[in-house]
């Protein structure tokens, strides 16, 4: 960690980068937002003025250096300006998930002792007011959309544009103060504090310095040769580190343009209109898009459907190789160009990926089939592996070395070490400063030399030098015969099928694996409609013999594919059942970000797991469910358990490391 701001030419903070961009790219678009049906644009010069006015207004309001300012809203230019204005006055921005419930907000606001909040609208104002009496230090709140707020008590409540007006009016009074505060910012000043979503226990505040953000952004921009001409669509939560790196770190480092959608529901239309050149999405977004494409193709006419499948098969064969610049025969190339004109091009435009030069997916492992679908279309989709604590980047895939089963090589300036038990450790200029007010957690995650534990197990492939993530370290286990049990790998393969929504694999310490499967109601419902299969409920559809036949086919196909992997061939699914209810966060079976809580599922449906292992043909069960309004009820069902064919493997001992 020897980098100093010398390496970035004295640009030691985001506000310093803003000044540079206003000087160098003054007339270039910095932000766009669709409002009233039209894309409104702010140049870097406009942005600098807006942020200055807000910063002056904040000083005028009494914001002091070191104060925490919460920022609660969806992706809008005003909130990005707020972050930088807060930094400019020496305070610390703390973006919150705007869909959190009031008591979740109360915890975070109380934990960091936020005195100010900049929020979007009446909904957020109401939430903060609801918990305000638990927050002794809280003083002023600023809102953007005045709708419905006119009658509120405005002693400590202010409209965003009024704060800016006050700032402009008091410019002479405060400008020296602002300049002085801005010049005090160094590479070690706090840039932002982000609360991690907290799958276990209470959320922790990750403190990231200017060094963390700027170094990581700079390295990643150089890695992918990003420049001021890029366009991105900012639609992922502002409280998430990825959005901070892409929409602030990299945008300010290169000076590219951040586009904000009109509303969350119009995101797909806006994506198509903007046609970003640099794009980021978690696997779930790609999965949903693929499911939609597949459903629409099933509904299309016979000719179109045949053409789609014919050319997609061809793309599957050669598309990836063409993208990677590998040799491909002339006839195949010609056929691919024809496919591009007829299928791939129009499809990419519909999806909004027509101009994507670099696309990333991360956050969770993506199903290889999904990944290859997009790559075969000619979209340069790559994987990266990252964490909030690392300012995102741990490993990334270089162009031309993209594979579905690895997460790439260490990102620039990142060192990686694999512990004896397989856990991945890293050290980089992006490594977080500390967990706010939580020295114990900081010490247990980051050691004195700066190495950070990821909690994930993985290994480097010998010939390529790529990192392969096996699973969450605590989920990986061993089968009874000692071979590795890595549930995620098999689950992701199954989840590729549009009609499978969720899978939970069991087998740790057992001699064979069994699985719970959730069907996707949209896809299976659509299929049922086309095949004249009547059903009254999710439960009935899930138990339909024809649905079970289809799922069984999927499971057997996946078994064949799993059997080919020497390390994981023991994870083939011997028996499965289709659950009578969807796994749901309200029942505690999933986290709010839709990650399955294995232990809870295994415990809650113990009778079903036992039945899968003892060979019974059917099982009757009763499950408690929680409705959205908190009431409880129960559903009972008799489930059919099915055997799936497995491929015999000659067992070979493979070490996990």
């Amino acid at each position, binding site marked *: 960690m020897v980098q100093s701001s010398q390496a970035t030419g004295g640009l030691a903070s985001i506000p310093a980068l803003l000044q540079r961009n206003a000087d160098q790219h003054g007339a270039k678009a910095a932000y766009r937002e669709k409002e009233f049906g039209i894309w409104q644009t702010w140049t870097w010069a406009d942005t600098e003025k807006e942020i200055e006015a807000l910063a002056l207004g904040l000083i005028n309001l009494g914001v002091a250096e070191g104060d925490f300012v919460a920022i609660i809203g969806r992706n809008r230019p005003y909130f990005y300006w707020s972050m930088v204005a807060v930094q400019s006055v020496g305070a610390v921005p703390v973006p919150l998930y705007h869909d959190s419930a009031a008591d979740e907000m109360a915890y975070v606001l109380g934990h960091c002792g936020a005195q100010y909040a900049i929020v979007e609208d009446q909904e957020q104002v109401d939430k903060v007011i609801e918990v305000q009496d638990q927050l002794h230090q809280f003083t002023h709140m600023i809102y953007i959309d005045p*709708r419905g707020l006119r009658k509120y008590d405005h002693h400590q409540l202010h409209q965003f544009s009024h704060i800016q007006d006050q700032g402009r009016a008091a410019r002479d009074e405060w400008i020296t103060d602002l300049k002085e505060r801005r010049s005090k910012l160094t590479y070690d000043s706090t840039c932002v504090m982000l609360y991690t979503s907290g799958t276990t226990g209470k959320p922790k505040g990750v403190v990231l310095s200017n060094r963390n953000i700027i170094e990581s952004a700079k390295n990643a921009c150089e890695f992918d040769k990003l420049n001021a001409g890029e366009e991105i669509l900012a639609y992922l939560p502002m409280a998430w580190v990825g959005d901070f790196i892409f929409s602030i770190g990299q945008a300010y480092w290169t000076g590219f343009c951040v586009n904000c959608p009109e509303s969350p529901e119009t995101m797909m239309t806006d994506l198509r209109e903007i046609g970003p050149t640099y794009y980021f999405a978690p696997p779930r977004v790609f999965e949903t898009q693929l499911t939609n494409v597949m459903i629409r193709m099933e509904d299309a006419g016979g000719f179109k459907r045949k053409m789609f499948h014919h050319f997609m098969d061809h793309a599957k064969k050669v598309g990836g190789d063409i993208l990677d610049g590998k040799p491909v025969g002339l006839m195949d190339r010609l056929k691919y160009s024809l496919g591009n004109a007829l299928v791939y091009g129009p499809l990419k435009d519909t999806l909004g990926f027509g101009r994507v030069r670099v696309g990333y997916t991360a956050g969770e492992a993506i199903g290889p089939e999904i990944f290859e679908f997009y790559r075969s279309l000619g979209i340069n989709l790559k994987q990266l592996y990252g964490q909030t604590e690392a300012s995102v980047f741990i490993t990334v895939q270089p162009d031309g070395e993209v594979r579905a089963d690895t997460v790439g090589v260490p990102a620039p300036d990142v060192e990686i070490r694999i512990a004896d038990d397989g856990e991945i450790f890293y050290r980089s200029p992006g490594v977080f400063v500390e967990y706010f007010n939580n020295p114990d957690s900081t010490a247990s995650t980051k050691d004195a030399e700066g190495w950070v534990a990821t909690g994930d197990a993985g290994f480097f492939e010998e010939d390529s030098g790529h990192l392969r993530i096996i699973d969450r370290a605590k989920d990986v286990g061993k089968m009874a015969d000692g071979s590795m049990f890595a549930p995620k790998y098999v689950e992701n393969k199954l989840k590729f099928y549009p009609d499978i929504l969720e899978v939970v694999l069991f087998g740790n310490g057992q001699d064979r694996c069994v699985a719970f499967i959730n069907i996707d109601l949209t896809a299976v419902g659509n299929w049922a409609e086309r095949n004249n299969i009547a059903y009254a409920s999710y439960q009935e559809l899930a138990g339909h013999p024809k649905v079970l036949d289809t799922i069984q086919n999927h499971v057997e196909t996946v078994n064949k594919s799993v059997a080919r992997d020497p390390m994981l061939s023991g994870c083939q699914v011997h028996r499965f059942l289709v659950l009578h209810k969807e796994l749901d966060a309200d029942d505690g079976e999933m986290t709010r970000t839709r990650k399955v809580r294995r232990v809870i599922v295994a415990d809650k449906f113990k009778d079903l797991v036992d039945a899968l292992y003892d060979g019974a043909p059917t099982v009757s069960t009763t499950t408690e469910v929680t409705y959205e309004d908190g009431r409880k009820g129960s559903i009972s069902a008799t489930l059919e358990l099915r055997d799936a064919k497995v491929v015999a493997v000659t067992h070979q001992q493979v070490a996990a490391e």
Partner: protein
Amino acid sequence: MNDMTHDSYTTEDGRTIGGVVMEMKNITLRFGGVVAIENISFDIREGEIRAIIGPNGAGKSSMLNVISGFYVPQEGDVFYKGQKRPPMRPYQVAQQGIARTFQNIALFEGMSVLDNVMTGRLRQMKSGLLAQALWKGKAEAEEVANREAVERIIDFLEIQHIRKTPVSRLPYGLKKRVELARALAAEPSILLLDEPMAGMNVEEKEDMSRFILDVNDEFGTTIALIEHDMGVVMDLSDRVVVMDYGKKIGDGTPDEVRNNQAVIDAYLGVAHD
């Protein structure tokens, strides 16, 4: 009970209610031998949310149709902004600044949401047929201005995502919202809502209630609405007229109406002698 003064006052939640903007005096409406409305009088004040409630067949929709000019009452007068209103066609009433939505949605099903809402701007389009057809000069400028006004309403009612969707493809709850958008596009001084929440689930009702309150608060629009859901009516309105069998049986604030014996009888039912 009925406050007949014309002075303005301020409600508990800080809105200003002005003087009487519309007054119905001794209205009687008959269809042949059937008396739909019998000698009813009430007023609507500027900026208030006025509800008309009553059991099925009480004559609520007929009353709204009298206000909107669709029915001409046999007896009685309608006063609008202090002037006695002569018998008028519905479009003339609309030109006076009274817009409405319908109990059974009446949108142009084949047209997009945007076009449907644009039709609400008809009153603001002044250029001639030829100019419109050639789309030059004044017509073009007018369209741009009207489109902007429509976009603000689309934003206000949060229907950006269905802007270009044909209305026939929308679910019921959204169609209701589009109808409200079209009525708002006319920039009415009085907005008539005929059962805006009929057939909606709880969540849709909450959304619609919020929009009605916001419209009233943001644009100062006077709203007269018919609604079945008593809970919704009592929460939303400033004053309530209760009708039963074509007669007015109660008029006052929600609290007054709630405690009115005639109203309780009409809703809970009493033995008829």
